[in-house]
């Protein structure tokens, strides 16, 4: 256990370093960010800006400074809002996290029972219906799902507001949108891991010794089918945050997603870097936690 833990922590450190390199690279991907920021200014002003931003130092020096600053949460002031970029990101983070977590919960409430049903009644009309929904769901862009729901509930029936994040009713459509985006992948995993477990000998033994079908499924099969689901929830956290960025744009929700899209339009690099860095760090942390949880839940991995 300790050895596994040490290895996981080492990997965490390496991944965090990698995240820093990639985030640093965003600013330099264009070659000359200053030329992007002030395309029509004379060269003298550009040189001036380069000096204030420290862009005239060697790359290694810039990277060292970036890492030191990033570790303390300093990404400089937003070029547009004239406030620390990190503060802007953190102020909007609760909204994005609430959206992502509510959507994840909503998706799980649907996908776990539906996935189990689909697996234990394999080949039934219910299974076909569920599999068809999964296929359709996976083939729709998340922003289009959002607009279609908006069209139906906000424009045609006028029962829910089409934008904002102020009242409970305005939360419904974005959460359903993002949930519909996350559910198909979850459902697929639940279904296939359940199918795999059901075929195992110990489940047959449980049946053979006369346990009720309910006890077989809930007490025996589900417990082992839960492992891949835990992993997926970890992996989906990243996809969920990415989906939240788009969903926020559809429904005009004041979260990190809208901040980042606006910052990209304004070439506000400190804000872009701060948001990408914070989001990536959150994903890294969640994946690390899931890894540990997985090791703890699964004795086979623990022994190795």
């Amino acid at each position: 256990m300790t050895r596994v833990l040490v290895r996981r922590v080492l990997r965490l450190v390496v991944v965090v370093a990698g995240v820093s390199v990639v985030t640093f690279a965003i600013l330099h991907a264009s070659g000359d960010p200053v030329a992007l920021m002030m395309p029509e200014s004379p060269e003298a002003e550009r040189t001036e800006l380069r000096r204030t931003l420290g862009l005239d130092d060697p790359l290694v020096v810039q990277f060292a400074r970036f890492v030191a600053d990033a570790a303390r949460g300093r990404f400089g002031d937003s070029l547009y809002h004239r406030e620390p970029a990190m503060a802007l990101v953190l102020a909007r983070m609760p909204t994005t996290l609430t959206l992502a977590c509510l959507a994840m919960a909503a998706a799980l409430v649907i996908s776990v029972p539906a996935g189990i049903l689909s697996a234990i009644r394999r080949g039934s009309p219910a299974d076909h219906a569920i599999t068809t929904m999964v296929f359709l769901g996976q083939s729709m862009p998340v922003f289009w799902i959002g607009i279609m729901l908006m069209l139906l509930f906000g424009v045609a029936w006028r029962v829910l507001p089409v934008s904002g994040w102020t009242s409970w009713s305005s939360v419904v459509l974005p959460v359903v949108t993002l949930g519909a985006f996350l559910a198909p992948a979850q459902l697929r995993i639940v279904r296939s891991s359940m199918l795999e477990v059901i075929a195992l000998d110990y489940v047959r033994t449980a049946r053979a010794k006369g346990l009720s079908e309910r006890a077989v499924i809930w007490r025996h099969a589900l417990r082992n089918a839960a492992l891949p689901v835990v992993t997926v929830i970890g992996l989906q956290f990243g996809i969920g945050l990415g989906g939240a960025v788009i969903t926020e744009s559809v429904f005009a929700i004041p979260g990190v997603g809208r901040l980042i899209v606006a910052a990209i339009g304004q070439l506000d690099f400190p804000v872009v870097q701060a948001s990408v860095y914070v989001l990536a760090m959150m994903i890294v942390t969640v994946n690390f936690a899931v890894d540990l949880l997985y090791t703890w839940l699964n004795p086979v991995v623990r022994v190795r």
Partner: protein
Amino acid sequence: MTVRALAVAHVSESPRVAAARPAWQWLRRSPLAFIGGVVLLLVVLAAIAAPQIAPHDPARQSLVRRYVPPAGFTGARAEHPFGTDQIGRDVLSRIIHGARISLLVGVCAVVLSSLFGVTLGLVSGFFEGRVDTVIMTVVDIMLSFPALLLALAFAAALGPSLTTVILVLGLTGWERYARVVRAEVLALRERDFVEAARAMGARAARIVLRHILPNTLSSVIVLATLQVAQAILAEAALSFLGVGTGKAYPTWGQMIAQGRDVVTIAWWLPTLPGLAILVTVLSINLVGDQLRDALDPHVR
């Protein structure tokens, strides 16, 4: 012998022939995948022949013919079966032209990421050791970013263009290939035919390219097919957020974004391009899923 058994039995002998034939039969036997294949073919043809079959110039504006609804609704016009947008452009023509960008980006991005990912996967799996650790760590790092967020940030830094989108999607999608190919190589290198080739004195490059690579191809083809669908969705998302392929040509994502602003008065503007995405991506997924069942019995 069932198709599945055939596919397995042939893997160790002549993988390419064995893979291609049952896959085709399987595709024909599954009606859904067949429909998907036909629809996909139609979309591809429409994209190739877009200037010939589109009824109007997709960029031509008309002030007097704005917000014409699609056929069957009051105020519809026969020459605009899908209606017109807020500046009077023909929606059907724009959707047909939009297919070009979607398919071009989808295919190019996947070619790029599969070449990159397969190479790294082969190297990683065959040479193991330190090289393997380095490559797999990079994969881990890439997986820590939401791919879309990374694509968004770099697309913005490089400026919106067709090349940027292809590059960005190509360079964020290779991890899956690397992982799948590496896993296959690790299993294959223990097999007898690889051992035999080694015993006969074949060099590493020959073993990898002639004996191992062909056996990983069926998984790669399946993955690549499904990844085209993902790339099309990702391109649409980038275009929707305004960091896509630029304003020079119509794209489905961009049409949806413009339609979103007028959703209360012209429902068809965001709806129809979305249906085009749905139909295309669904067809690819149907074909890809059947291919997976036919070629790749082990992987779900």
